[in-house]
């Protein structure tokens, strides 16, 4: 009897234990479940839809009927055989390199300036940076458009008044190069605050005794920067560079609005605009999906170098 009672208690205790253990093990998963469900809904499903769409003939006709026609990899073949795609890709890579390079270099210079100036100047500079950062893209485009306006833009006025040349009614949108240069100026201007503030944060982590030691040893400023400061801020630089590549490669709002729909043609496409023109304006959604998947692959390939180096730095740290 006593044995039987003992067994029952043991059993029930073990069962209680098991239930508790399962419950405890399950709670974290239950807690992350909403996040996983949400991510699947907002990321997984659209990517699945995009993939499916890229394998279908889907134009205005199919859009109205909500039913595409499966055509395998035909859309990808069309895009890869399109000369405009390759020209646009090349142009976009050059554009991205220029934009990312300028943003990172100028942003880092602003950060280096920030760390050297007095608190008041720091506050004023940071406020200006935050104001630039806070300006919505569309508003910024409008302001730039006004400033560079052909009829009465302030840029032409100031350049003429300063006797830099006769800029009366100078057309800043006359060539592809100057169109993209204006877009670059706008993107770099808007991109500097993020880089400057991130790099500034990293610079505050550079131990001053290291810098002092290097200076005592007779190292010049640029040598101190490259041998002492740069290795310490490198992880941050890598992160902001790879983020900038992602943003600038797929940029759409600034070039589309600043150059203007009426002036966009295959000779000045960037990838984001090529996708929009082929996919939306021509209402060939299947082809548009194929282009965006190709863009995704290209960006992933470009970021892989940075991601690997970041992981390496992380492991070393």
């Amino acid at each position, binding site marked *: 009897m006593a044995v039987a009672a003992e067994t029952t208690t043991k059993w029930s205790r073990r069962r209680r234990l098991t239930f508790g253990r399962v419950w405890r093990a399950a709670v974290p998963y239950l807690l992350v479940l909403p996040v996983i469900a949400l991510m699947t809904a907002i990321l997984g499903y659209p990517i699945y839809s995009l993939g499916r769409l890229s394998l279908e003939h889907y134009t205005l006709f199919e859009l109205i009927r909500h039913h595409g026609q499966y055509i395998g990899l035909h859309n990808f073949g069309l895009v890869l055989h399109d000369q405009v795609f390759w020209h646009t890709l090349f142009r976009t890579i050059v554009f991205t390199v220029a934009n990312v390079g300028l943003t990172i270099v100028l942003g880092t210079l602003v950060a280096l300036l920030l760390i050297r100036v007095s608190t008041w100047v720091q506050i004023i500079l940071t406020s200006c940076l935050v104001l630039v950062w806070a300006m919505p893209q569309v508003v910024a485009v409008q302001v730039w458009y006004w400033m560079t306006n052909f009829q009465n833009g302030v840029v032409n006025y100031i350049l003429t008044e300063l006797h830099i040349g006769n800029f009366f009614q100078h057309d800043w949108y006359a060539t592809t190069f100057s169109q993209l240069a204006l877009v670059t100026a706008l993107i770099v201007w808007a991109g500097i605050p993020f880089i400057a503030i991130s790099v500034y944060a990293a610079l505050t982590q550079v131990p001053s005794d290291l810098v002092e030691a290097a200076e005592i040893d007779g190292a010049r400023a640029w040598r101190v920067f490259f041998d002492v400061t740069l290795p310490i801020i490198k992880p941050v630089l890598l992160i902001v560079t790879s983020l900038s590549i992602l943003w600038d490669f797929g940029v759409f709002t600034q070039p589309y609005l600043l150059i203007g729909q*009426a002036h966009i043609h295959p000779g000045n496409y960037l990838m984001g605009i090529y996708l929009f023109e082929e996919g939306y*304006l021509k*209402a060939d959604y299947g082809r548009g999906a194929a282009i965006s998947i190709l863009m995704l692959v290209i960006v992933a390939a470009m970021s892989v170098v940075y991601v690997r180096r970041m992981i390496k730095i992380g492991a070393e740290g």
Partner: protein
Amino acid sequence: MRLRVIATAAVALVLGVVAATASASPQRAAAGKLTVWLQVDAQSGWPDIVAAANQQFQKDHPGVNVDVQYQNWGDHLQKFDATLAGGNGPDVIEMGNTEMTKYMAAGAFADLTPQKGTFDNSANWLSGLAKSGTYGGHVYGVPYYAGSRVVTYRKDVFAKAGIKALPSSLAQFIVDNKKLAVSNRSTKGFSPVYIAGTDWYFAMSFVYDYGGAIARTHAGKWYGALDSPQALAGLNAYKRFWMSASKASKTSDEAHPAPYDIYSQGGAGAIIGPGWYSCCVGNKYKATTAQFVMPSHTPNKPMPGFLGGSDLAVPVTSSQKALAADWIKDFTDTSSEKALQAKGNIPNATNLLGTSVNERAAARSWFVPAAKHWVDVENGNILRNMLAQILTGKLTVRQAAASASDNITSVLNGA
């Protein structure tokens, strides 16, 4: 711990319910409301006519509100495409006559053929406009209004330059431009006639004036025709005229800036565009502004002008097609059309036509090729790009026209 899990579940449940009701609510709200997409032209030019039509419609259909949403020519089709995919689209949409074919071919609009007889003056609709709303013998678009392009000019500036009679030929107009330029030397950047460099509507008038065309069809295939000798003569004439007339940017389009804004600021002696441009010439010049028909290179003949226009259509996605057709009926009835005519437009029917400068200009007109993919030529800026190349001298007229022609051929025959 358990409490937290329960709380999370409760929040998730609430979110789910909110999401479900959020997606259901627009449809419920749609009942008793008719959504109409008109272009901003109506908002700036004739809001009173829209209001009058709404009033009439609401009298006939008490309890149905009309929500007029104004759209821009530049992006209204993308927005419309999105509603075709996702729902919640308009019940009535204004379409440019050059935009209709692609959508009719894809089956985007409801067939209005059975109701045609109930629209005022439908037996006398302007043939050009009626054709743009008809596909495969079925009516999908109701003509709304047409507009030809005229020269809007300042009588005082022309008189000051010593121009006694309005130009009756292209050559005479170029001579007058020179006089206008000389007498307004003191105004910096003054254009005798302000024309945006890539205003293809105006430039193509020269092509048609010299007997050319944008594209021709042969054996079921389209061919770009801008490299024909006639078209080249037209493009050369455009370049000559533009150089004598306009100080606009060679790459600008006719919407940025609006020509009447240049005019109202005293920057031009004349502008070329739709007749309704007279609306916005500014109070200062209202009294001295008049209009005339653009002369041809053949003396005493008008130059063929682009016959622009709009149709009203009912998207297949509308759940209130009968109500939508009724609203179109009110908005295109005789009184509305007469009011539109008073604003400088061409009414939709021949029996309403008058003798205004706008209506006289419509006597010789041209229209874009009736190809399913025409809108892709427009959106792809093939013609604008060609004009910019010609005016900036980046390419010769012949080179630019040949390249544009090739592009047009490939786009118009697209799958």
